[in-house]
């Protein structure tokens, strides 16, 4: 849709209009250079004012110059070309320059083709109509440039090619070097007339001219392509083939239609559409239109670009919005699945929790309470278990008299039981050394009892410490009331505890 355009074939007598789009085209008609023709053309242009237009000019009043210029770029190039065009074509309005190639040797200069419409007054009404109808003019190109694209479509790759194209009863001879336009001329003037002589003669004259102007190398063999829907050029093929300086190829309508992908019947009805279709989708390498005529096309291109940008932005926005929205929907779908799963989990939990005794503590506290009760209920050693080793020791030592016996149960905290014994050595003769020996023997006896881990002397009958005062009365005879009192403490722990 974006490549759709009007391609106009303008001659001093008439103008033909082709509505072209890739793969499809429509011939809108030919309009004579009369008042009625202009009116009809205005109507057509008004209906297609939204399409850019390319005007292909077919006239004898044209001029081509090949020039070699130093290689410059940017603004300098523009200035050089403007100066050169002014110099070559003076005050011609429709001029153009085409940088065709760059020399491969020397300074590597640029080779340019300069072209001009030397007399284009006949074109002004058509262009004025386009301007009035606000049709964006993309460019004005010579028909020879359209024929160059025709060569590309026909895949003709000979280095020196002369295209003899007969349209509207006029013969155009165009020379191409390396596939690029170098020279073109229209034979017979702007008024269609039958060929005065043989087309072969005209081609031979053109070859001599090109050689003379050193446009065509002297030894080059010219490949002549004959394009004529009316088949009047068929007769020229034989004499040209007889000359070793030429080789010819006759392109018939079907070959042309196939190369341009145009229906045969369409091409038969409008043979003028062939070069127009060839150039329709191409970039304009040589544009003869002055910049003031291209202003509306510049505006058109900006507008189209902005519309495309807006469409692209909107498309990206819609696509991104859709993608994020779909992503959100996907997440919500997953959420719905998870919500159902959570509901199942909650239901199963409630079923289990319903079996818990509500009046009681939490299950963990319940278990801890039971475990704690079991620990508290662990039986402590019975009193007789503690009394047995004490009794045995007292039996073995009858001079040790028991005053009191106490025990403290620390099995819950430290796992042991502490036994306190207050006793006395009686009778006591005042011999503390002997008494201490008896106490030590008593403690040794206790240590031998099963379960006893440690035995400590807590209180001694006498304090022989150097830091304290020691006083007393030594008796030689025993007193029945005298006793050496002491305290011992033992740790008891049941085996395996």
């Amino acid at each position: 849709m974006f490549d759709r355009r009007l391609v106009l074939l303008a001659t001093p007598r008439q103008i033909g209009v082709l509505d072209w789009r890739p793969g499809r085209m429509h011939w809108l008609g030919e309009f004579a250079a009369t008042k009625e023709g202009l009116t009809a053309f205005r109507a057509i242009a008004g209906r297609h004012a939204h399409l850019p237009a390319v005007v292909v000019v077919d006239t004898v009043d044209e001029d081509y110059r090949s020039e070699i210029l130093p290689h410059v770029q940017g603004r300098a190039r523009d200035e050089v070309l403007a100066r050169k065009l002014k110099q070559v074509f003076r005050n011609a309005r429709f001029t153009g320059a085409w940088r065709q190639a760059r020399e491969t040797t020397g300074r590597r200069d640029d080779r340019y083709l300069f072209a001009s419409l030397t007399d284009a007054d006949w074109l002004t009404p058509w262009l004025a109509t386009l301007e009035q109808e606000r049709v964006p003019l993309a460019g004005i190109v010579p028909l020879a440039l359209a024929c160059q694209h025709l060569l590309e479509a026909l895949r003709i790759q000979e280095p020196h090619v002369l295209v003899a194209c007969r349209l509207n009863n006029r013969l155009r001879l165009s020379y191409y070097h390396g596939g690029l336009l170098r020279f073109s001329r229209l034979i017979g003037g702007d008024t269609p007339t039958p060929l005065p002589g043989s087309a072969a003669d005209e081609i031979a004259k053109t070859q001599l001219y090109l050689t003379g102007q050193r446009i065509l190398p002297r030894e080059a063999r010219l490949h002549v392509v004959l394009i004529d829907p009316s088949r009047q050029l068929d007769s020229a093929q034989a004499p040209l083939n007889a000359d070793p300086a030429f080789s010819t190829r006759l392109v018939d309508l079907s070959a042309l239609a196939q190369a341009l992908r145009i229906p045969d019947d369409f091409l038969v009805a409008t043979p003028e559409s062939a070069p127009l279709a060839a150039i329709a989708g191409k970039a304009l390498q040589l544009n003869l239109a002055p910049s003031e005529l291209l202003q509306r096309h510049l505006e058109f291109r900006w507008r189209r670009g902005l519309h495309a940008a807006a469409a692209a932005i909107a498309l990206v926005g819609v696509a991104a919005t859709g993608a994020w929205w779909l992503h959100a929907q996907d997440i919500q779908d997953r959420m719905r699945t998870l919500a159902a799963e959570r509901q199942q989990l909650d239901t199963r939990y409630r079923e289990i929790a319903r079996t818990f005794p509500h009046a009681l503590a939490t299950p963990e506290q319940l278990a801890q309470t039971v475990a704690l009760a079991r620990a508290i209920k662990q039986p402590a050693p019975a009193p007789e278990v503690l009394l047995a080793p004490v009794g045995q020791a007292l039996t073995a030592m009858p001079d040790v008299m028991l005053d009191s016996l106490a025990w403290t149960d620390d099995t819950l905290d430290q796992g042991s039981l502490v036994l306190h014994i207050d006793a006395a050595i009686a009778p006591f003769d005042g011999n503390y050394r002997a008494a201490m020996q008896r106490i030590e023997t008593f403690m040794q006896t206790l240590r031998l009892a099963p379960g006893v881990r440690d035995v400590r002397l807590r209180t001694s009958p006498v304090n022989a410490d150097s830091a304290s005062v020691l006083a007393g009365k030594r008796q030689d005879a025993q007193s029945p009331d005298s006793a050496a009192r002491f305290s011992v403490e033992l740790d008891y722990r049941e085996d395996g505890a």
Partner: protein
Amino acid sequence: MKTPPIAALRLPLALVIAASLLAAGGILWSRHQAGEAQQALQAMQTAIDNARRRLVQSRLQQGLVAENLAEYQALAARGFIGSEARLAWIEAVQLANRDAGLYGFDYRLAPRVNERPQLARGLPLGHTAMTLTMPLLVETDLSRFVAALHARAPGLVRVRSCRLSQPGGTPTEAINTPRLQAECELQWFTIAQPGDRS
């Protein structure tokens, strides 16, 4: 493309701006929707994980309840759980004293105190100290009393400490006359229920 004719391009420029605004708005809105949905999904995922953990824990709790409920209820019935049963404890001591064939006792009950944390394990465990003073004929009377007390005790009780002594210190007493004195500290353990004063 040369300098754009701005004046002639107002409408296309407005279109570009409108398309940009609409696209940006749409993208922001849909991203916001997706972000909110993502947050909700994460919250839901967390809730699912918590529900799974709670279910697994409830199964463990179910096992704990099945394993310990009967014993817990028995402990509650014995008076281990709940408020103190001081009168019952005194009665139990009295019965144990009588069962052991002893000669009476003096008692003193201290206020209930909270148990040490290392033993309580986070539970409201406390104990009430009961100090008993009672005469004994022979040392083995104490063992019989303790055995009888454990048989009679309505709650959980431990003999914390005991002291046996001869108050007179004279062995020349009449036969069947108590000559020993036992002073014992019993600890009655209880777990306060919520709402009970500890």
